[in-house]
């Protein structure tokens, strides 16, 4: 490759990495009872390893300040993609944190890793088949039966369920760390539903954008071919059932830890993201409940732990699975990968027996070294472990909802005694490991480039009888110098993994493929009812949030200009406040018996209507619910949309932390929030295909905008005010309805109720009029698929009814107040419109969003 030449003069006096690794733990003794770290990835002795040379040269040329700028770019890009991780303790998702400096692995070393990981995957696949088949390994004494029969991942209902000629272990993840000598060593296997490959992809996407030339010049292996193999493998599994197999990604839902990754992978691979309730088993086959029709599913890539996948045959309390799924799999009507039951080989105690297994099944020795392990089910190994508890790392053989790992060297003697008695009570459930030294790798921290312990997880996917290994993976570094655990649960930082290629990397496989044209999937059938319903609510909440924000801003503007208008100004403000209570359903508020007091000092009520996310009708509530609904349909929205929701999330957070005396902050945030909501609208209009999902989103927006307008007009025009106050009020209404400019241009004169009604109710060309919403709604309803339930009053005919009412209304008469200054006819007209629109919304929901009834288990009576 072409060397990166750097003019000598531009190198800063102390290069960025020149001092590394004098800071941090590199070279010093271990802290907190941990073993001293092993080698450093970057330097051996004083010298930079050759395969790091191009990167360090490039980074030194960049300089520390620029590196920090790039780190900010990384943070911003991740944020824009909505990349997040949810720890079990926290309710809020945390932003995904990626370090600017990748881990570099040489081409030669990776060849060995690739061969070792492939061999291990092949071996574990054979073990998995045997354990759910003949169980020769147990009968011949190669693997102790306790490790299988006593393991929570061994699922008896799956016994004897075989895939035709496919690998049973479809995807495999393996954690690798370095021993003292620097040899990459297996620390843990992941076979249940390996996570992190999607994050590795996101890391690569972001880093290659932030360092385009460094990335290109470094000749880094692409990771995309891994995902093409994944897709090819899934299609192959489905090809036994269908020429055009339907694959779905089964997720526990948006509250799960790696929800981002589920949606990211589903949309990258082009498959539907589903939850258990989106699926149903009928006649022993699996179907996706898709807007009233049932679409057969051929392959499920599951991210739900197997024991939660079927409440009939597995955990009865699970709400995440599909009853009958195991039976459908048993009959060969659907393939679930990884096979339910694959969790049995995710067992650290197996390591003590895999050498013998490899010799028995493959006639080979294991290529990759494995961390030294002792299984406590064996009396002599247990004795060894109990003597050295304070030096070893202990863990249960089965992964549990929260698996604790016990680092003996960091434990008090009382805690060690407790651990000892736990092991002695159920010894076969425990395994101990030699702590691994692990290597350190340069990591950008607020104080400089420091040495942190790192761990690499890489992946393999079954392909044509063997495995394709991802050239790279997810590298994670410890959150600080002393932490023994490197896990996202405990704040680890991610790194991209650059496996160097010996030749420049070209893309060798493309999306384009030869052969007959593939028919596009029916757009409506790819959409689950849950997704459709959430898109509808995304539309409603984004519109509701906008309406509340606009009205709040109009109130603040009026109040800020009080002096200019004297008493009339006060009256207009009071009217606007009443309108606010009415449109936000915020009774009693400014309309209740004690409203006089509240009108005199409205700050706290205004504050609550903006910031109180627990109050239905408030701005914060609408934005919060918008974000929740959007999270469910993440895979349906474009990547850029996440930038808008990310901003909204931060603004919402800011509102929630603002105090009452900071109205300035509230007002400022109202403005920026409005911008984000408009950005969201724009992205929806410009980036979303006009498919069924978009029609639902748009229908939601139109219904909500029409409703908001009707209520705004109803509350503002109910009774007449004196000319000056009414003029100010009408102006604010037009501002809130984003039609003031048009109105001024068209009518030039002072505001009048009749012309205002013309513009805001019946004008077909004003995108802010009720008529406009009704027309769009009619279009949307025409494009929606046949409703599963027979039409009730008939959605389209009610839209036409509303349009007729508007067309035939006489606004001159409606606008005229009666002798008491009331506009009762107008109120009756608007109330009727509101009821019609509300009925339409209900009807649309009931016809298209068929909810499953609650699910529960049936039990039997005890015998006697």
């Amino acid at each position, binding site marked *: 490759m072409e060397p990166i030449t750097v003019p000598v003069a531009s190198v800063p006096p102390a290069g960025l990495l020149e001092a590394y690794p004098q800071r941090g733990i590199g070279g010093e003794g271990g802290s907190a009872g941990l073993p001293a770290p092993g080698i450093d990835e970057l330097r051996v002795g004083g010298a930079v390893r050759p395969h790091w040379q191009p990167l360090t040269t490039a980074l030194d040329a960049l300089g520390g300040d620029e590196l920090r700028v790039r780190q900010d770019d990384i943070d911003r890009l991740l944020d824009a993609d909505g990349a997040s991780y949810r720890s079990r303790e926290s309710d809020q998702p945390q932003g995904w944190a990626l370090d600017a400096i990748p881990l570099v692995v040489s081409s030669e070393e990776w060849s060995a890793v690739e061969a070792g990981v492939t061999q291990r995957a092949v071996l574990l696949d054979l073990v998995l088949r045997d354990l759910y088949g003949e169980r020769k390994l147990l009968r011949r004494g190669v693997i102790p*039966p*306790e490790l299988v029969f006593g393991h929570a991942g061994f699922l008896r209902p799956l016994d004897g369920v075989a895939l035709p000629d496919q690998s049973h272990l479809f995807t495999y993840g393996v954690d690798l760390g370095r021993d003292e000598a620097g040899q990459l060593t297996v620390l843990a296997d992941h076979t249940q539903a390996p996570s992190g490959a999607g994050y590795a992809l996101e890391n690569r996407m972001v880093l290659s954008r932030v360092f385009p030339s460094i990335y290109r010049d470094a000749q880094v292996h692409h990771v995309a071919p891994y995902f093409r193999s994944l897709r090819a493998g899934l299609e192959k599994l489905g090809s036994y059932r269908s020429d055009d197999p339907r694959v779905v990604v089964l997720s526990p839902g948006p509250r799960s830890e790696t929800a981002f990754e589920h949606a990211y992978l589903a949309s990258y691979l082009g498959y539907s993201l589903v939850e258990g309730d989106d699926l149903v088993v*009928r006649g022993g086959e699996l179907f996706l409940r898709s807007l009233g029709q049932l679409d057969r599913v051929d392959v499920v890539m599951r991210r739900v732990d197997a024991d939660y996948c079927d409440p009939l045959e597995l955990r009865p309390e699970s709400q995440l699975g599909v009853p009958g799924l195991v*039976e459908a799999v048993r009959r060969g009507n659907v393939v679930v990968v990884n096979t339910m039951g694959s969790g049995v080989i995710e067992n650290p105690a197996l390591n003590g027996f895999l050498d013998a297994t490899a010799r028995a099944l493959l006639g080979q020795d294991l290529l990759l070294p494995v961390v030294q392990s002792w299984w406590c089910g064996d009396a002599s190994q247990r004795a060894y472990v109990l003597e050295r508890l304070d030096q070893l790392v202990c863990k249960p053989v089965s992964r549990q909802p929260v698996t604790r790992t016990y680092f003996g060297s960091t434990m008090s003697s009382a805690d060690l005694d407790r651990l000892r008695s736990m092991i002695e009570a159920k010894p076969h459930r425990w395994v101990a490991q030699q702590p691994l030294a692990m290597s350190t790798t340069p990591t950008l921290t607020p104080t400089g480039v420091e040495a942190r312990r790192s761990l690499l997880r890489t992946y393999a996917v079954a392909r044509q009888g063997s495995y394709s290994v991802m050239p790279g993976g997810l590298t994670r570094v410890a959150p600080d110098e002393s932490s023994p655990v490197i896990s996202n649960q405990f704040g680890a930082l991610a790194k991209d993994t650059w496996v160097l290629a010996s030749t420049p990397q070209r893309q060798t496989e493309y999306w384009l493929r030869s052969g007959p044209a593939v028919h596009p999937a029916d757009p409506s059938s790819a959409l689950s009812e849950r997704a459709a319903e959430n898109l509808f609510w995304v539309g409603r909440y984004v519109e509701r949030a906008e309406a509340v924000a606009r009205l709040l801003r109009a109130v603040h503007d009026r109040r800020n200009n009080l002096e200019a208008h004297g008493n009339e100004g006060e009256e207009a403000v009071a009217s606007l406040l009443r309108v606010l209570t009415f449109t936000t359903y915020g009774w009693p508020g400014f309309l209740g018996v004690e409203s006089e007091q509240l009108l005199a000092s409205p700050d706290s009520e205004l504050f609550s209507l903006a910031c109180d996310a627990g109050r239905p009708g408030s701005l914060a509530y609408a934005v919060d619910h918008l974000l929740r609904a959007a999270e469910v349909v993440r895979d349906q929205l474009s990547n850029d949309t996440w930038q808008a929701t990310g901003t909204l999330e931060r603004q919402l957070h800011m509102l929630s932390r603002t105090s009452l005396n900071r109205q300035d902050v509230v007002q400022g945030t109202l403005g920026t929030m409005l911008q984000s909501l408009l950005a969201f609208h724009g992205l929806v209009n410009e980036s979303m295909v006009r498919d069924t999902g978009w029609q639902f989103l748009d229908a939601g927006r139109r219904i909500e905008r029409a409703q908001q307008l009707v209520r705004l007009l109803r509350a503002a025009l109910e009774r007449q005010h004196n000319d000056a106050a009414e003029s100010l009020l009408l102006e604010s209404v037009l501002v809130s309805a984003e039609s003031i400019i048009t109105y001024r241009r068209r009518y030039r004169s002072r505001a009048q109720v009749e012309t205002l009604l013309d513009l805001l109710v019946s004008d077909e060309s004003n995108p802010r009029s009720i008529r406009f919403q009704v027309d769009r709604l009619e279009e949307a309803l025409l494009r929606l698929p046949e409703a599963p339930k027979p039409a009730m009053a008939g959605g389209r005919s009610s839209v036409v009814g509303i349009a007729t009412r508007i067309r035939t209304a006489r606004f001159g008469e409606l606008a005229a107040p009666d002798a008491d200054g009331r506009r009762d006819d107008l109120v009756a007209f608007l109330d009727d419109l509101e009821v019609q629109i509300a009925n339409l919304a209900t009807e649309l929901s009931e016809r298209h969003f068929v909810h499953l009834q609650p699910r529960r288990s*049936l*039990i039997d*009576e005890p015998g006697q």
Partner: protein
Amino acid sequence: MTNYRITHRTRYTYDAPVSLSYGQSCLLPRELDTQTCTSARLEISPQPQDQRERLDFYGNRVCYFSLDQPHDVLEITAISEVSVLPERGSAPAETQMLLGDAVAAYGQHPDAVHYLLASARATADARSSAFADDCLVADRPMIEGLRLLVSKIHNSFGFDASATTVTSTVEDLFKHGAGVCQDFAHLSVSALRAHGIPARYVSGYLETIPPPGKPKLVGADVSHAWAAAMLPSGAWIDLDPTNDQFVNDRYVTTGWGRDYADVPPLKGVIYSDSRKTKLDVSVDVARVG
């Protein structure tokens, strides 16, 4: 040879319609050396849209069924004809082996290990273990130890169907001092495992004999459960702590597993707004021919 005709009817009555229902039964008798099943069928009403029988991990005859038409009542009836051989219950010679020798003889045979490990409902806990300490003594012949354990359970606890549900644990049995067959079977299994003897939970029926001079009432029988201990040869000996005896030709076996959770006669998942389900079970074990 004794012939039985067994009718086991279960009726679920819901207080609101059920739109979807999935079930699995374990109600049909197994084929054994000591038991031949001449006919067995499952009648489900309303008619399921899908129904299939298979053998499970343990070789039990289980049946999967699903209904996707709304219904308020679900009735499952198992009707079987079974012949049971009389020699059942006569203990093989190896039951004379000393308990200590037997425990040492199981080795690492996968089946022995499988049934020795604690399961969710038969946990081989310290209390079950201590309960059996004076029965399962190492220098006592196995058959005698088992005999003592069965009697001790029978004599230590009352029979009380109100004290227990299908989800009761061995701990509940100790707490209430009373239970039903399922609880006694779980305690037996738990205690045997704690003492190194592989044990399983067995589900089936027992022919009841009416009091002298009274006619036998149809439908008054119940499903029953007991325990079985593995012998070093891999053979099993069945023991019924509820009735203080070893199992004989008045017993019919439907299934076995590690504990109740592996062999419930019926289990299911329904989709419904229904909150209450009325459950009626009737069992009839009639001697025929």
